[in-house]
């Protein structure tokens, strides 16, 4: 059996999903659904799996998340719906519940954060509520693992017995009631034939969702009758169709709450939240606090934990490399194979692997910011700023994640409901320097600007953002004309993040990175080793300059001469950076025939401080790695646009590097 997990954002959905499934999660794709969804085996019910659908507030055909949820439920016909509801915010959460009930699918309501409600002296009469909305209501606490087994028992039970929601009428007798009933009666046959709940289709038709007219195959005549009945209702009720339906749902919810919910006075969590907000979103403190938080995170990531763990890991890798080297030499293996293993695989993959700790630590902090509710505050504080470049505060979060890794950042643009905002954010995200570029900056600043590494990095980061802003302003006036999406966003109470969720996320990021390290990057290092070790006649070369790679590098060198990078080893490293940004440095070390430690020293022979600047700016801005390009392609849904974006980014990078190199040459 398969269950859909549906709920509002900030309702604890991901925590519940993790509690339900443990580590048995994978990404599933479903026919007819454009976006991959997380699926997990349920720990407490053998043979049952649950799909984690995106967090939504309503089922409208506007944002991608809403469409995904709607299509999943309509096309996949899950055996049951687990609707998670935040008990501390019950009215708005039930709004989605009422729409889900109309789908006519066995459903259980998981009333999350009941511990918080009780802790503040509130109560919810579970049986009264269950009776009012016609489905089982199970109080749970996803983070404390309370009520989970009962939830699983109930959903599997009602799914097996196919017990449908028993209440469908949320309307007081009156014009709205009459309208819904006459429409749903009229389309009943169509709905049955197409296996869609008539009630759900009726409300969607009244709301004006045209896709249902097609799905049901309604005739022009029938559409007109519906339209007539709706405008009659609008006239009689004194509200337009959308306001009337929203009003109907909220009135019903108010009645349910009056009967079943005793709310407390202002909750402890809210009081605490207001206090924290006085500092984090206060008039004078908000921006300094934001930058302070980001600096502390970057300092902890790259300074404290990062460097320590990276050193530890690279030492381990070096020891292993030496051991294997010794073993292979003693065994007397063919020198070409020896070179493949030591110079190709161990050097390439090893250098990339040593950055795993940085990615893990950064994602650890970013997911804490997300889970505590701070990211929403960032959007609140930054909205005005981002509006200047034609976006909303919500685009800030994906861009922020872009500093960690472009891939998840681009995936995070799914929370944006307008295509225009999404495309523009996707385009801008690569300008936020990703963490994989850090080794490049690190090696170069050690070599050319010793003692000023931090300053060099900060300058580069800000330069990337600056170029992004300029690009946004230009795009706003040209390619992306139009209005940004409405900015209507919940500010949830601050919460302690669930460490389990944070660690699971970090684990997935680490796994993803390792997978890339051993697939894309592994392959790339072997290809680059091969190109570097052989010439066009497949003879193994002793001098790198005779190799195939040198030939390719030589071929494109002319492009890089004007920006001061006229050496095939540089152009080759830049190409290698397409596979993954970490590969820029590893390729350079392979081509220069040095270890990672010795690289800083050997770079002096290849760059002047000025051409090093040009190189840094070029690598900062040019096209993101293959994995990111693949993600962009998936999210944009267009090969042409993706290609255009990649080219544009390369051009911008080249122009900036050119300006810096030429102006620098004039000055020095």
């Amino acid at each position, binding site marked *: 059996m398969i269950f859909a997990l549906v709920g509002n954002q900030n309702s604890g959905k991901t925590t519940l999903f993790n509690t339900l499934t443990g580590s048995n999660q994978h990404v599933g794709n479903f026919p007819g659904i454009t976006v991959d969804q997380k699926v997990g085996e349920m720990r407490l019910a053998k043979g049952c799996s649950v799909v984690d659908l995106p967090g939504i*507030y*309503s089922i*409208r055909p*506007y944002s991608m998340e809403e469409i995904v949820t709607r299509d999943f439920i309509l096309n996949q016909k899950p055996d049951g719906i687990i609707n998670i509801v935040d008990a*501390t*915010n019950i*009215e*708005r959460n039930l*709004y989605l519940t009422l729409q889900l009930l109309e789908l006519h699918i066995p459903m259980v309501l998981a009333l999350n954060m009941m511990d918080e409600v009780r802790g503040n002296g509130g109560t919810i009469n579970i049986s009264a509520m269950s009776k009012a909305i016609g489905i089982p209501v199970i109080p749970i606490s996803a983070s404390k693992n309370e009520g989970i087994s009962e939830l699983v028992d109930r959903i599997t039970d009602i799914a097996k017995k196919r017990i449908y929601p028993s209440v469908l009428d949320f309307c007081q007798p009156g014009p709205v009631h009459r309208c819904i009933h006459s429409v749903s009666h009229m389309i009943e046959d169509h709905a049955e034939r197409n296996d869609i709940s008539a009630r759900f289709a009726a409300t969607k038709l009244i709301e004006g969702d045209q896709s249902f007219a097609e799905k049901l195959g309604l005739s022009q005549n029938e559409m007109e009758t519906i339209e007539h009945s709706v405008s009659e209702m609008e006239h009689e009720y004194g*509200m337009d169709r*959308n*306001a009337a339906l*929203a*009003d109907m749902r*909220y009135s019903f919810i*108010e009645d349910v*709450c*009056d009967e079943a*919910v005793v*709310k*407390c*006075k*202002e*909750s402890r969590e*809210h009081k605490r939240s207001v206090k924290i*907000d006085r500092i984090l*979103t*206060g*008039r*004078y403190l*908000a*921006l300094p606090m934001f930058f302070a938080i980001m600096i502390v995170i970057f300092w902890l990531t790259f300074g404290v934990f990062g460097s320590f763990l990276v050193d530890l890991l690279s030492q381990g890798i070096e020891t292993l490399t030496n051991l294997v080297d010794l073993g292979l030499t003693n065994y007397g293996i063919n020198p070409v194979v020896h070179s493949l293993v030591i110079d190709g695989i161990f050097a390439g993959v090893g250098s990339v692997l040593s950055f795993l700790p940085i990615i893990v630590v950064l994602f650890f902090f970013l997911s804490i910011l997300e889970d505590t509710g701070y990211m929403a505050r960032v*959007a*609140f*504080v930054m*909205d*005005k*700023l981002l509006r200047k470049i034609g976006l909303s*505060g919500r685009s800030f979060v994906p861009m922020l994640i872009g500093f960690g890794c472009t891939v998840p950042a681009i995936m995070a643009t799914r929370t944006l*409901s*307008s295509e225009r905002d999404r495309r523009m954010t996707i385009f801008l995200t690569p300008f936020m320097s990703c963490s994989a570029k850090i080794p490049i900056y690190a090696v170069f600043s050690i070599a050319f600007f010793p003692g000023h590494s931090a300053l060099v990095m900060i300058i580069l980061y800000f330069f990337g953002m600056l170029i992004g802003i300029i690009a946004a302003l230009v795009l706003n006036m040209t390619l992306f004309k139009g209005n940004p*999406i*409405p*900015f*209507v*966003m*919940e*500010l*949830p109470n601050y919460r302690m993040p669930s460490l389990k969720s944070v660690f699971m996320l970090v684990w997935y990021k680490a796994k993803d990175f390792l997978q890339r390290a051993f697939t894309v990057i592994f392959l790339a290092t072997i290809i680059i080793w091969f190109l570097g070790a052989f010439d066009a006649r497949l003879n193994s070369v002793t001098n790198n300059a005779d190799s195939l790679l040198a030939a390719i590098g030589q071929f494109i060198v002319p492009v890089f001469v004007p920006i001061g990078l006229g050496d095939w080893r540089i152009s080759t490293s830049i190409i290698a950076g397409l596979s993954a940004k970490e590969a820029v440095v590893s390729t350079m070390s392979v081509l220069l025939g040095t270890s990672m430690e010795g690289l800083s020293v050997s770079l002096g022979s290849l760059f002047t401080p000025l051409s090093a600047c040009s190189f840094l700016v070029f690598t900062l801005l040019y096209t993101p790695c293959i994995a990111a390009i693949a993600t962009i392609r998936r999210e944009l849904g267009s090969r042409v646009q993706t290609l255009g974006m990649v080219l544009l980014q390369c051009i911008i990078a080249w122009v900036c590097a050119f300006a810096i190199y030429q102006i620098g040459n004039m000055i020095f």
Partner: protein
Amino acid sequence: MTLNKIPIGKSGIITGVGGKNELRLRLLDMGLVPKTKVTIQKIAPMGDPIEIMIRGYELTIRIADAEMIEVEEAEDNAYDICSCGKSK
């Protein structure tokens, strides 16, 4: 009167929700329907957007969008999370 005219800490009762297309639907979905009580909580550091309290939770909307929401002044301005949104 429109929602953006209400001073910080004071409340109003929604009488009508304007705005176009998606914006309006979002506002309605988030619970800004007529007869609901709204309290202005604060203004963002840069002067926009604003934070409002509605149905016991906090929501942020832009001032330009708040101008689309018609309200009448609520008699009781005291902080009141208990009300189910109804003006009783």
